[in-house]
C-alpha cells in the first residue's frame, strides 16, 4: 500500500463493517434469492456507481484473490477502471482483464461469456434489488408478497407484455425464480445472460448500496426465468455477427463509429480478444 492509502484498512472497510456484511451474505447464501438488509456504508463513490457491489467485494476479497472488474462487459470503461484501481490501491491484490484468470469478478450489467467455475465468485452491482418494485413500490408490502410467495402479480406484468407485444418483452432484468422459492431481480443484465445463472458453478453475490440490500445464489442453484407454459422464456438472437471476431453466439453491442457508421461487436471485450487470438496464432 502506498502513502495515499496508509491508514486505511485492507479493502477500505473496517473489519467490523466487513464482518457485518459477511454475516448478511451468509444469510443470503442460506436463503437463495432472498433480499437481506445490511447497513450500507458511505463509500468514496456516489450511489449509482456500484457502491453495493464494492462493499460486497470489499467484504469477501482476500490478499490471494485476482480481481476483474467489468462494466457492460468491458474492462476499460471509466467505472470499471476506477473500481479496479480502487481495489488495487486498498488491497494490493493482482488485477486482470482475463475472465479465466480471475477469482473474483465484480460486474455491472453482464455475465462473462466464458463459463464461470467453482473457483470463482461473481459480484453484481444492483441498482434496484426488488423485482416487484414496479408493481408494488411500497417496500414493506413487497416484502410481505415475498414472504407469502404471492407472485401472481409478477405474471400479470408478463401477461401484459405478451398481450401488447406478442412476446415477453423484458430485454433486461427479466425476473427469475431462484431455487423454486424467491423471485429475484437479476440486476439489469440482458435476458441473454439469464440462462448462465442457472446452476452456475460459481457463487453469485448481489449488492445494492442505495437500497441497502444484498442477495445471493449459491453454486449449482436452479434459476428459472419467469414465463408462461405456452410462451416459454427464450433468448432472442440479435441477428448480427461481431465485426471484430465474427461471433454470433455472444451478446453484442451496437457501436456508433466516427462518420455515423454502425457496427456490432462483442460486449465482453476479453472474450472477443480471446476469439481473435485463437483465429490468428
Amino acid at each position, binding site marked *: 500500500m502506498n502513502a495515499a492509502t496508509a491508514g486505511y484498512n485492507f479493502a477500505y472497510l473496517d473489519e467490523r463493517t466487513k464482518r457485518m456484511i459477511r454475516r448478511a451474505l451468509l444469510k443470503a447464501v442460506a436463503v437463495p434469492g432472498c433480499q437481506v438488509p445490511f447497513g450500507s456504508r458511505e463509500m468514496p463513490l456516489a450511489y449509482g456507481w456500484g457502491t453495493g457491489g464494492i462493499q460486497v467485494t470489499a467484504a469477501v476479497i482476500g490478499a490471494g484473490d485476482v480481481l476483474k472488474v467489468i462494466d457492460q462487459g468491458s474492462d476499460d470503461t471509466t467505472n470499471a477502471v476506477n473500481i479496479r484501481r480502487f481495489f488495487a490501491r486498498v488491497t494490493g491484490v493482482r488485477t486482470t482483464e482475463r475472465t479465466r484468470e480471475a477469482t473474483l469478478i465484480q460486474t455491472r450489467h453482464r455475465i462473462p461469456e466464458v463459463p464461470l467455475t467453482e473457483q470463482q465468485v461473481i459480484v453484481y452491482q444492483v441498482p434496484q434489488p426488488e423485482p416487484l418494485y414496479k408493481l408494488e413500490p411500497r417496500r414493506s408490502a413487497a416484502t410481505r408478497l415475498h414472504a407469502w410467495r404471492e407472485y401472481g*402479480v409478477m405474471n400479470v*406484468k408478463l*401477461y401484459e407484455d405478451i398481450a401488447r407485444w406478442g412476446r415477453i418483452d423484458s430485454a433486461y432484468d427479466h425476473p427469475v425464480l431462484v431455487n423454486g422459492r424467491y423471485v429475484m431481480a437479476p440486476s439489469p443484465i440482458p435476458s441473454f445472460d439469464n440462462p448462465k445463472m442457472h446452476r452456475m458453478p460459481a457463487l453469485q453475490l448481489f449488492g445494492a448500496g442505495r437500497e441497502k440490500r444484498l442477495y445471493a445464489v449459491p453454486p449449482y442453484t436452479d434459476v428459472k426465468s419467469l414465463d408462461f407454459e405456452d410462451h416459454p422464456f427464450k433468448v432472442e438472437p440479435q441477428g448480427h455477427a461481431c465485426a471484430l471476431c465474427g461471433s454470433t453466439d455472444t451478446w453484442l453491442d451496437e457501436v456508433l463509429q466516427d462518420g455515423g457508421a454502425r457496427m456490432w461487436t462483442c460486449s465482453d471485450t476479453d472474450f472477443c480478444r480471446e476469439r481473435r487470438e485463437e483465429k490468428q496464432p
Partner: protein
Amino acid sequence: MTAPLEADEAEPLLRVHDLSHRFPSAAEEHWAVRGASLVLHPGEVVAIVGESGSGKSTLLNCVAGRIAPSAGQVQYRRADGRWVDVHALPERERRELSRTEWGFVEQHAAEGLRMNVSAGANVGERLMALGRRHYGELRATACEWMERVELDPMRVDDSPRAFSGGMRQRLQIARNLVTRPRLVLMDEPTTGLDVSVQAKLLDLIRLLVARLHLSALVVTHDLGVARLLAHRTLVMRQGRIVEQGLTDRVLEDPQHPYTQLLVSSVVAP
C-alpha cells in the same frame, strides 16, 4: 323475494357477532359500528342500507377482513366446511381467502382494478395468483368472463381506462368472479352511474348471483337497489343495525321509526 333455502343450506356461510368498531382517530364515544350481528346463508343476498356515515362501509370492511374490528367476531364457513374466525386467521390465510373464496366489488372501479394493465390481465390476475401459467388459457378465460358480464371480448387487450364507468364495474365483477367465489361483498356497486346504466348493471348482478348461487352483502343507500337484489335488508343508523328482515317486509311495513322515515322519503316505484 325469498332465499332459496335447501336442507343442506340451512347452515349459514357467514356469522357476524356483536361487532363494534371505533376508528383510532374518532372521539371517545363515536362508534362507526356498534354491536352489529348478522347471518348470511348460502345463496342469499343481504342489503345493508342507511344514510351516509351510518357505518355501512365500515361494517363491510370488517367482514372483508380489511379492518380489524375493535370488538366482536366475523366467522366464515370455508369451502372445506371448517368455520374460521376471520380476524384470528394469519394474514396470509386471510388474503388467500379473499382472493379465492371471496370477492370485493368497490364503488370506485379504479380501486378494484389495475388501471395500467389490460382487461384480460385484470380478469386473469386471480388465476395467475393460483398458479395458472398458460397464457392462451388465461386469455380465453378472460374472454369468456367478459362475455358473461356483457363486455365485448374483442376488447380483452384494451386498458380499462378506455372503458366507461359501467363497463369498468362489469370488468371488476368479472375479475372477482373468475375464481368462483362463494361470498361477494359489494360497496355501492352502482352508485355514481347513469340511471339506465345502473338498471342494466343491477340486472346483470341479479342474474349472476342467482346463476352462480353466490352469497352477497351489498351496501347501498338506495332502497331501489335493495328491493331489486336483496332477499333480506338490514337498516343501519349511527353505527347500529336498527331493523332487519325480508326486504319486502322492511320496505312495505317498516317497524323502526328511522326506517319509516327512510322509506317514506323515497318515491314509491
